[in-house]
């Protein structure tokens, strides 16, 4: 665990319709980009301890679509989809992200800009989520507040163990 851990994610709210997540990885940018854009790899990390990723489709070209479906621990299927807007391999990825459980998912979709900056073989990743309005971002925050703290450490340990 120690060797791979690069610290915790840092969350900030740069503007009232945005959420920014920053994290450093102990790997070069090309590998991080590969893990972000290869379906078999996304399946291994995207669900984290929340559930198994049962579907992962990536059409990696501008205008191409993506769709992920997770089987959440409570038996619910959670789907997300969107479209790629900008692709700069190993550096920058811009895509839309719609949560299929929300009313009118596409109208309420966020624009997610992922940037990778490599330095000495390590990579800092920033994920900027821009929502159509403050209200939608706050709704996402409110949802997170209800479910966010109910994480089971047992589940986390199980996933971590299975990835070893």
């Amino acid at each position, binding site marked *: 665990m120690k060797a*791979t851990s690069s610290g915790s*994610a840092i969350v900030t709210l740069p503007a009232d319709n945005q959420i920014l997540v920053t994290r450093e990885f102990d790997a070069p940018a090309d590998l991080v980009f590969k*893990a972000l854009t290869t379906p078999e790899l996304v399946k291994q990390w995207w669900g984290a301890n929340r559930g198994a990723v049962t579907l992962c489709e990536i059409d990696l070209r501008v205008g191409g679509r993506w769709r992920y479906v997770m089987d959440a621990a409570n038996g619910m299927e959670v789907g997300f989809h969107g479209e790629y807007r900008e692709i700069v391999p190993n550096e920058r990825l811009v895509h839309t992200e719609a949560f299929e459980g929300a009313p009118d998912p596409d109208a309420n979709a966020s624009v997610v800009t992922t940037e990778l900056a490599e330095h000495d073989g390590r990579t800092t990743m920033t994920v900027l989520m821009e929502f159509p309005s403050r209200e939608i971002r*706050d709704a996402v925050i409110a949802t*997170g*507040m209800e479910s966010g703290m109910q994480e089971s450490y047992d589940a986390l340990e199980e996933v*971590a163990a299975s990835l070893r």
Partner: protein
Amino acid sequence: MARAATTTDAFNAVAEPRRREILDLLAGNELSVNEIVEALGLAQPQVSKHLRVLREVGVVDVRADGRRRLYRTNGQALKPIHDWVKGYEQFWSDRFGALDAVLEELKEQEDANEGNE
């Protein structure tokens, strides 16, 4: 549900970058408007305006000290925001922890491939 409304207000107040700077400055410090103006290099009316917003949602308190008015953060009002950010950070940390494991495997594969060449 009243809690959610207050939380949302506080979120909006805190989301503005300048106001976050002011909150950072006030964390553990009691300061006057002038001291904040000096530390951040902003115009006094701008600082006063931000402080008013922060006071309205209750994340900043003020008290009189002689002729000065001293501002400080209200930990209790900031707690819902802090809790949410921590919870959300935990979610991303879990996800990125799994990504770390994937990256370790990719690095090992690369090393193995290089060894074969």
